[in-house]
């Protein structure tokens, strides 16, 4: 965890860890895992709200909980930039992390694979591997997506690759 900012570190320690090692093909144990995922996501969302740092919405897009969709946003120069957020739970989960996609940014940055999958190789994948099965969706958002947005959105805005929607809310709160 060297090189991570103290804020992320302290947030991370407060997200409940998961215990069940189960993927979407594992039947009843997957349901157990799904419960733990929800608990971690609820705790993380509550924490963000109380710290005035709310930055995403996510919910399961199917009853099996194998596909998740939502929104995430990032504030840069007092303007809010919002993006669709989606990912599938891979069959080999949690040995492999979900591949987080921001389809609207597909092709706009090199730090992204085709289909809008954000590049997590260097900063996130080793952490995920080391902490399997204790990390879940909430941890992937906190340690994978959040730092990616913080690094990429300012560059994308400053280089003119993404434009702010004038009708979007421009305050830091949501």
């Amino acid at each position, binding site marked *: 965890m060297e090189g991570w900012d103290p804020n992320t570190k302290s947030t991370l320690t407060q997200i*409940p*860890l998961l*215990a069940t*090692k189960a993927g*979407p*093909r594992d039947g009843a144990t997957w*349901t157990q895992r*799904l*419960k*733990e995922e*929800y*608990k971690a*996501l*609820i*705790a993380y*969302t*509550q924490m963000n*709200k109380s710290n005035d740092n709310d930055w995403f*919405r*996510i*919910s*399961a897009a199917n009853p*099996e909980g*194998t596909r998740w969709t*939502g929104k995430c946003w990032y504030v840069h120069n007092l303007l809010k930039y919002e993006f669709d957020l989606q990912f*599938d*739970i*891979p*069959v*080999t989960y949690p*040995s*492999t*992390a979900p*591949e987080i996609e921001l389809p609207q940014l597909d092709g706009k940055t*090199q*730090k*992204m*694979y*085709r289909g809008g999958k954000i*590049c997590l*190789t*260097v900063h996130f*994948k*080793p952490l995920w*591997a*080391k*902490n*399997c*099965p204790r990390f879940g969706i909430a941890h992937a958002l906190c340690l994978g997506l959040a730092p990616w947005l913080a690094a990429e959105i300012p560059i994308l805005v400053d280089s003119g690759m993404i434009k702010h929607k004038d009708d979007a809310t421009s305050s830091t709160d949501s």
Partner: protein
Amino acid sequence: MHRCDRRDVAEEEEEEEFSLAQKKQLVMEAELKQVLNDLDSLKHSLLDPSHHAPIDKLQSRIEHLTTLAKSEPVRRSKVKDMSAEVVDSNPYSRLMALQRMGIVQNYERIREFSVAIVGIGGVGSVAAEMLTRCGIGRLLLYDYDKVELANMNRLFFRPEQVGMTKTDAAVQTLSDINPDVVLESYTLNITTVQGFETFMSSLKNKYFRPAKEGSGVDLVLSCVDNYEARMAVNQACNELNQTWMESGVSEDAVSGHIQLLIPGETACFACAPPLVVASGVDERTLKREGVCAASLPTTMGVVAGLLVQNTLKLLLQFGHVSLYLGYNSLKDYFPTMEMRPNPQCSNAACLERQKEYILAKPARDAAAKTKMEAEALLATEIPLHADNEWNISVVDDSELEKTYATGSGPADALPEGLTHELPSADEFQKFPDADTTTATIDDLEELRKQLDALNA
């Protein structure tokens, strides 16, 4: 010659609809004919005969172009049996020569084999072309991507295929090269729950060779570019007890590797963190920022070549089949190693296969003994292990310096030039129940509603 080709085309025209190429050809012929007519009328309208010579010359050039346009390539028809006859028209003469030279015992067996290639990118597409040209029986191709101009720095795909799915484009090219190969294409992502189901059932389907033991394919080649897809291939092959080969090229495009995985017998992909060939230069000097992946046609071509060479050796039983072969292009260094399965592997199916492998040891030993005795009798005439399908050799455990794929401890010493790409999972601790009791709700529907309320 041309007349002969034309007749073939004319016959086909009667039977089936015009192909796009045939339509283009007809339009071109009509245009050229019109130019000839125009030139003719021009010639007749000219009063000064001294101008006739250059027009005659133009006309003869147009006639030449017309003949060229007519000689469209003809698709070769299927070949029933592989012939060793050395004639220009035999697509397999140079391959069958392997038999004559004593390299391969029975080359024609290649037509019985099915190979699944997962990932039709820089490595997979080239591997598919190599196997197609070798006359493999059946290829199953899996990819969900489309061809892009950004792929043109690699081999196989052509600019006019941009926008097609990689599977469709591959089938188009491969069926032209060798119509004898049975091609099946699957446009799907094997890491999703649904894609994985289709992947598994396609591997199990035995219509091509119903008498075959095990699954419906002889080998799976993983030519994907990410860890998630490799783990999905690993999962499927462990569950199906399916031998497979893994291949990879580093994101900086200067190194690569191939690995043979036999469930229960060698380390599975989840037994240890994935191995990568270290670039051999200071990692900090490699520019990484800004790009997620670089690629070279050379490195990818070399890795595809190594992969298919190992495939041919395994299927046709010749030479030594490598269990792991690395390629460091900066130093031209090729590390090799062997990895035994990790008895604490996190993959349940791998542990089952390991158990089966250990249980089968007495039978393996007995078979090896019988074979050795039989060979001792015929030592002078019969080559060693002629029917050893997986090139298994019996050696005393103490003799071998194999690496246990535990990912920790002194036994983890890797050969020079190889490093682990990811760390191992930390020791899995059971957390005290107190950690989870903070959230007292344990109903999935309740939890979902709670998150939805927060999202509102």
